[in-house]
């Protein structure tokens, strides 16, 4: 009986060992730390892309550490801080020229190591969003923005929200996939105003 039990125990142990050998050895957090250490060691500055870019800021760290779903308290704290840092236009005006906005929305240039650092960045908008009805080559990572203004109206509140969302999407949804264009210094005040006009101006093709 003892022998039988021992044999059964040994079989279970062998099975467990086999299962452990084929599964991950460490926790998700430990592998994440290994990934960060390896990235810091194995990446090098090139062009305008300096090495410091691989270091997380507090928003990135919260999203990375909790797989884009941080605990509520942390999320509220960081989201509020991002919102508080949104720089609204000093003149209180949000609408630029939608035609200029369309050009910015079309452009995907900027911030790669092969881009010149002193040339203005584009908005990359069509990479992820449907926007104007005439542009059929659009991405689907973000929601469609077709008829954005038509369905939301053009009130000062909507203008302010739209400006702020482009300036810093993380002020509303901490782990949004959308870049923080104003916060990152990719788009300036005037460029963001043009994009707001593209989305909200009743004359923009987006709202026709």
């Amino acid at each position, binding site marked *: 009986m003892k022998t039988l039990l021992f044999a059964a125990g040994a079989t279970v142990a062998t099975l467990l060992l086999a299962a452990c*050998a*084929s*599964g*991950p*050895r*460490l926790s*998700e957090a430990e*592998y*994440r730390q*290994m*990934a*960060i250490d*390896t*990235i810091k*060691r*194995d*990446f*090098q*500055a*090139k062009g305008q*892309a*300096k*090495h410091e*870019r*691989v*270091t*997380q800021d507090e*928003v*990135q760290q919260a*999203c*990375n550490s909790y*797989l884009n779903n941080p605990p509520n308290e942390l999320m509220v704290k960081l989201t509020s801080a991002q919102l508080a840092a949104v720089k609204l236009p000093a003149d209180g005006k949000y609408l630029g020229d939608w035609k200029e906005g369309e050009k910015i929305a079309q452009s995907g240039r900027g*911030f*790669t*190591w*092969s881009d010149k650092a002193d040339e203005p960045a584009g908005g990359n908008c*069509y*990479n*992820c969003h449907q926007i104007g009805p005439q542009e059929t*080559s*659009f*991405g*689907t*990572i973000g929601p469609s923005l077709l008829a954005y203004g038509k369905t939301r109206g053009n009130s000062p509140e909507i203008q302010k929200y739209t400006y702020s969302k482009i300036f810093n999407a*993380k002020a509303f949804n901490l782990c949004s*996939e959308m*870049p*923080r264009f104003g916060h*990152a*210094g*990719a788009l300036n005040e005037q460029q963001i105003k043009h994009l707001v006009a593209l989305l909200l101006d009743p004359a923009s093709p987006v709202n026709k």
Partner: protein
Amino acid sequence: MNIASSGLRLLSCTAALALSLSAAAQAKDPNAEFEKFRAEMEESNPAELFEIKGEELWKARRGPKNVSLAESCDLGQGMGKVEAAYVKMPRYFADADAVMDAERRIVWCMVEKQGFKFDDIAKKPFQGGNDNNAPEITNLVTYVASGSRNMKFDIPLGDPKVRDAFETGKATAAYRAGPYDFSCNTCHGVDGKRIRMQNLPNLATPEGAIKGVQGWPGYRMTGGVMLTSQWRMNDCFRQQRFPEPKYASQAVTNLLTYMSGNSNGQIYKGPGIKR
């Protein structure tokens, strides 16, 4: 097939491509049109030209130590054997005490066995649009990859060191940083998304992961250059607005272990054609 005839074939392929792509541009679904065209193209794949050059390089005695890779480089399948080696890498190599993808392993052999200097190879490891010839290392990787044509990916994930590379690669794919907060997963973490008209494979799934590694090394029709998975990883990080991953580094191997490992059991078709 000799090199002269494959060169001619390359020219005719490029001409056919120009015609076909302009037709595809007018079609409703350029992705489907391109896939159809690529399937036809692969009957006379320009990558073969690079395989032939790579085979010559593999067998030639070269470098300060004047030895061939065929007689000195073990890709995990026995000395000098290329058959089935590519679909079983990344794997752990005890002599280097590291998990290595195919390109990293061949570079290691060139340095350790043939006596080449790593910095000389890493100085310009990828073919640029203005270069007439692909680097030697690209030809070698293409030759090695051709030895796994129509074989199933079989990355040894049961090896704890390979598993570590896989899990670290998975975490690397999820790591958001840089001015745009992008990770690999921003574009390649869910099913059914596009950038502009370009379909984006979800690398976490077997169907998506195989799309990430299939066709590499590949003859890229934009620019007419031959490029490897190492280049593809490099260009992803460029678009991710990250700094540059060092050539043949562990970070790149980790990602390739994640993608290739998720492709296990699926058939690798060999060096391919890319848009």
